[in-house]
Each structure stands twice: as C-alpha cells, then as structure tokens.
C-alpha cells in the first residue's frame, strides 16, 4: 500500500516526475520545500493577524485588571480545560496522520484525519454549549451586554424546552443538523449511484459533524456537573460586581443583593437605548437617582461587557480557524481515501498539519489568558 498509485508518466519528459509533482519543479524535494516555506509564511501572517487581538487583550488587562478579576467567574475553567485536552488530542492525531502519510500508509492516514476532524467538531460543540450558556444570561459583546442573574427559561412547547437546553443552542445546532442530514443523504445517493469514494468520504463527513453533537452532549453534562446543575452558579457571578459597586463610595445600595444588580441594569438600559426596556427593571430606577450616588455602578457592567467583546472576538476568530481547519482536513481526507500519499509526496498533509498545530498553539495561549484568571 506504500506506493499505491501507478506512477504517472504523462509528464515524464525530462525528470522522474511523480503524479503530483508539478511541472515547474525539478524534484519532489524542491516542491516540498517550496510548499513548506509557503505555509510558514502563511503561519506568520496568522500570528500577526491574531496579535491585534492579543494587543487589545494586553492593553485592557493592563489598564483594567479589576474587570478581568470580575469577569473570570463567568468562565468555566474545567470546561475550557477539557476542550484544551480535546484540541491537544486532535493535534496528536494530526501528527500521527502526517507520520502515516510520510510512510505512505493512506488508510491509516485517513483514519487519523477522521479522528482529528471529529475532535475539531467536538471542540466546536463544547464551544456552542459554552456560548449559549452565556447568551442565556445576557452575556453578550459590550454593546449588547445585558447580564441578568438566572436563565431565560425556554418558552414552553418549543424544541429547546422539551430537550431542556438553551434556545440559542438549538439555533447554533441548526447548521450542523442540516449538514449531518445532508451528508447522510448524499452518502446514500453516492452508494446507490456506485460512487464508492464519494460515499465513503461523505460517511466520514457525517461522522465528523456527529462529533459536534457529541461535543454538545459532553459540554452539557460537563456544565451540569461542574456548576451543580442548579442555578446557583448563575447567582454567584453577581457577587464580585456587587462588591465593586459597594466599595466605590456608595452606601445606600448595600441592601438587597439581587435588586442592586437589577437597578444597575435598569440604569444602563435607560442611558443606552430607551426602546429595549425590560419592565421589571423599570420599577427600580429613575435617572435622578443615578446622579445622586456618585459613580454609576452600571459602568462595571459596561467594562465586563468589554471583556466579553474581547473574549468573543478571540475565541470566535479561533473557532473560525477551527472551521477552516476542518475544511482543509476534509480535503486531505478525500485525498487519503484516494490513496494519494507516498513517501515522496505527503506535503499537503504536512502543511495542513502545521496550520492545525498553530491553531492549537493559539488556543494554548488563549486558555490561560481567558479562563485561568483569578
């Protein structure tokens, strides 16, 4: 199986060109080295691309360390840690896929690539649980930040309510669900029209998308296990906010924990956009009240919203890279099934592998920077 492909002789006018050695290269080695330099250049641009967000992070943390201390309670470090391990495992299987391709073991390579893709999808599934959990509490980017202790209960009768999950999770899972059904249907059609390679590829893609749903289930179980299942965890995040609001020369607000927060929310709403009132906030506030009591406690909400702007940008851009990686891996998976790799031609697997490890590297830094703040 090592040299599964017949050597293509169509181009073989001057050199011993293999099937996939482009004509403008003297040798397989020259082609490989060019590709390698190319992917390193791309990775440099990727590092610089992400560095802008790291600058935003550094500046914000430097100027407002207290915001980061307040914000960390919203992030589940055990869920993040588990996701880190999933990503590290996918990096291992990627390295093993590269090794298989180097040895010309196409079948083994396709299996390792499939595991890599499933882990990548699983990572996204866990992320979807994490995001939807936050959105339930109104934790959005700065401009839409609307924290409220306690979940928005799913409306009775909806799919979300019957499954006991967040309505946002249902919306996020819509595309993977379509992809899953599409892959299965297309695979069956491929089987019936006697396209074994296509059919096999689509089964692999269906398994990959299935990884997303595995991630969702694991994420839900993990959230329930580490946050006690009850809504106790949802209440605790308000405490640092309270603390900060109270210590900033404001005596009157000390009574009534939950109310204090609602109050702050109400004010924020009023300042921002009169249209988006929630009625239960209105009864607690008036604008003159905000003037009487020194610093506006709602500004702490605002600053935590900025933390989450940075959080969503960084993890979101990373997630987009994961999706891009899955697409590149799918291409490799197809070529592995077609048995294209040989000891002198494995460049694409190596190059996508480098990209995949870079995505992993970025997560290695994002994880302690975002999740492990104390």
């Amino acid at each position, binding site marked *: *199986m*090592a040299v599964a492909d017949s050597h293509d002789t169509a181009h073989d006018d001057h050199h011993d060109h293999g099937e996939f050695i482009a004509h403008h290269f003297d040798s*397989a*080695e020259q082609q*490989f*080295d060019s590709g*390698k*330099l190319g992917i*390193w*250049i791309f*990775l*440099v641009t990727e*590092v*610089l691309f992400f*560095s802008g967000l*790291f*600058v935003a992070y*550094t*500046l914000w943390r*430097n*100027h407002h*360390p207290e915001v980061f201390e307040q914000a960390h309670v919203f992030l589940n*470090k055990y869920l993040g*840690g588990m996701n*880190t*391990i999933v990503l*590290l495992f996918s*990096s*291992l299987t*990627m*390295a*093993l896929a*590269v*090794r298989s391709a*180097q*040895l010309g*073991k196409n079948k083994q390579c396709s299996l390792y690539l499939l595991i890599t893709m499933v882990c990548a999808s699983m990572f996204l599934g866990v992320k979807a649980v994490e995001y939807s959990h936050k959105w339930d509490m109104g934790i959005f980017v700065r401009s839409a930040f609307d924290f409220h202790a306690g979940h928005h209960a799913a409306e009775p009768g909806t799919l979300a309510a019957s499954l006991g999950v967040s309505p946002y999770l249902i919306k996020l899972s819509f595309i993977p669900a379509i992809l899953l059904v599409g892959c299965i249907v297309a695979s069956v059609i491929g089987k019936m029209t006697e396209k074994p390679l296509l059919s096999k590829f689509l089964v692999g893609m269906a398994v990959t998308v299935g990884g997303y749903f595995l991630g969702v289930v694991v994420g839900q179980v993990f959230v329930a296990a580490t946050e006690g299942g009850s809504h106790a965890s949802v209440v605790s995040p308000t405490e640092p906010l309270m603390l900060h609001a109270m210590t900033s020369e404001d005596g009157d607000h000390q009574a009534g924990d939950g109310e204090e927060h609602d109050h702050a929310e109400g004010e924020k709403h*009023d*300042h*921002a*956009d009169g249209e988006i009132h929630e009625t239960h906030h209105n009864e607690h506030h008036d*604008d003159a009240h905000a003037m009487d009591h020194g610093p*506006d406690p*709602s*500004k702490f909400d605002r600053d935590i919203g900025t933390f989450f702007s940075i959080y969503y940008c960084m993890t979101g851009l990373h997630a987009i890279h994961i999706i891009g990686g899955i697409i590149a891996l799918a291409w490799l998976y197809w070529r592995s099934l077609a048995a294209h790799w040989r*000891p*002198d031609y*494995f460049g694409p697997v*190596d190059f996508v*592998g*480098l990209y995949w*490890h870079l995505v*992993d*590297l970025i997560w*290695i*830094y994002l*994880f*302690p920077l975002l999740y*492990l703040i*104390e």
Partner: protein
Amino acid sequence: MAEHHADHPSFNHPAPLKLLYGVFIALIGLTILTVVVSTLGLPPAIAFPVAMLIATAKAFLVCAFFMHMLWDKGFNILFFFSSVLFVSLFIGLTLTDTSEYQNTIDAFPRAEDVAAP
C-alpha cells in the same frame, strides 16, 4: 506493513511514535498543572507569569515535535520566529504609548452620559 525508511527521500522524517505519544502525555500533564495552579489562589503577580511559563512550555513541545521544527530547515524556523519579534514590538510599543491620551479620554464624557437627557 514494514516501515521502509530506505525508500524515504531526504526531506521525509517520520517522527518516532513513542516521541509523539510522549509529547501528548506531557501536554496533558501541563494542561492539568496549569488548571491546578490557577486554583491555588496565588497572587496575580506570580500566577500570571507561571501560567504563561506553562503555556510557553506547551508551545515549545508543540513547535519542536508536532510541527517537526527540530527537523525543519533553519531558515523556516527563523522566519516563523521573526513573527514573534514583530508581535512583541507591536505589543511593547503600543503599551508604552497607551497612557498618553488618558487625560483626553477622561475629559470626554462616556457615551452613556451623552445619551442621558
């Protein structure tokens, strides 16, 4: 299927399996370590450098072994790490400048206050 290294061209260096598994176990160990350290409640002045040190150790393992840097051409590696130089310039120079306009910012009303009647 036997591994026939004799067939391999010079640019093909399959990493030993034991090495890859060993690196993975080390990475998992470091991940668990960094989570445990974060729960110890160390002061931020210590906890942050420790977390970054562990992350850099993990990054080294991934670069050196998973990304095959140890077997790669020196030029490629130099090229890649030049990006780190530019990132540190980017962060460093921005940090030195960042407090420069704080007075102007403080003098400027917050968006919320402007919107208030």
